[in-house]
């Protein structure tokens, strides 16, 4: 099974995580329908490095940003998606 090294919990089975979506800036509320169409429905589906949001729902319940190779499943980068200090 694929495993992810959660920055809060350590290495855990992928079955503890739920895939969210690819990382992309969320459009502003008044963005055009075309922008929302791109955000909600359109995917690049690259072969290789892919930035993804995953939810550790059976662990620390945090959203994580994972850069994962879609061909080899190698995890290139993993970090918390939260930016608490910037929002403070």
């Amino acid at each position, binding site marked *: 099974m694929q495993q992810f090294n959660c920055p809060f919990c350590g290495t855990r089975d992928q079955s503890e995580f739920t895939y969210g979506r690819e990382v992309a800036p969320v459009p502003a509320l008044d963005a055009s329908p075309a922008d929302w169409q791109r955000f909600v429905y359109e995917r690049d589906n690259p072969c290789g490095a892919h930035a993804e949001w995953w939810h550790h729902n*059976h662990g620390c319940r945090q959203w994580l940003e994972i850069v994962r190779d879609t061909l080899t499943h190698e995890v290139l980068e993993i970090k918390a998606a939260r930016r608490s200090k910037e*929002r*403070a």
Partner: protein
Amino acid sequence: MLERRSALAAHPLVNPANRADLSTAGTVRVTLSERPTLSILQVSAFAQTADAAGIYLAGALELELPAANRFSGDLRKSVRAIGPGIWQIVGDDGAVPEAAAIRATLAGVATVVDLSHARAAFQVSGAAAARTLAKHCGLDLYTPKFPTGSATNTRFGHIGMTLARIDDAPTFELLVFRGYAEFVFESLVEAAEEFGLLILT
């Protein structure tokens, strides 16, 4: 306060007469019990105030703040760090403060939810306890990966649980959604039977 009752009150195996075929003639290597009247509070700090919440919480409980995925305190009163800015206070009624009191202490820095009625608690203890749990949990439950003092959210089969190792027997404590109590109990009985099981509930 509402009276707390065992989540297994209606289960036939709670009556010792119904578990005659669960032989205890051989060596007992797993004991299984329920803690029916546990007090459980979950504290979730806001992202900007997690540090302050931790300091206030430790002061209110008179316990040291545990590191991530660890707990401090004892069976009577413990606090578990199960995520960044997320703590569970677990212990006996009376030893654990009322939700309202903790809520007042942490006003503006964290939310407090009383989970006492929402969870069932089990203890699995003995030489084969880790092997029993391994049938339903993917974590490496052996020392040094999961030593006494560990506490974390993980999975039990297809549901979530909060798992803690509370002593070197080893004894594990499972907190699961109360609606799944009978499923978890029966799964543990089935998993532990081959090792020699004693049910204390």
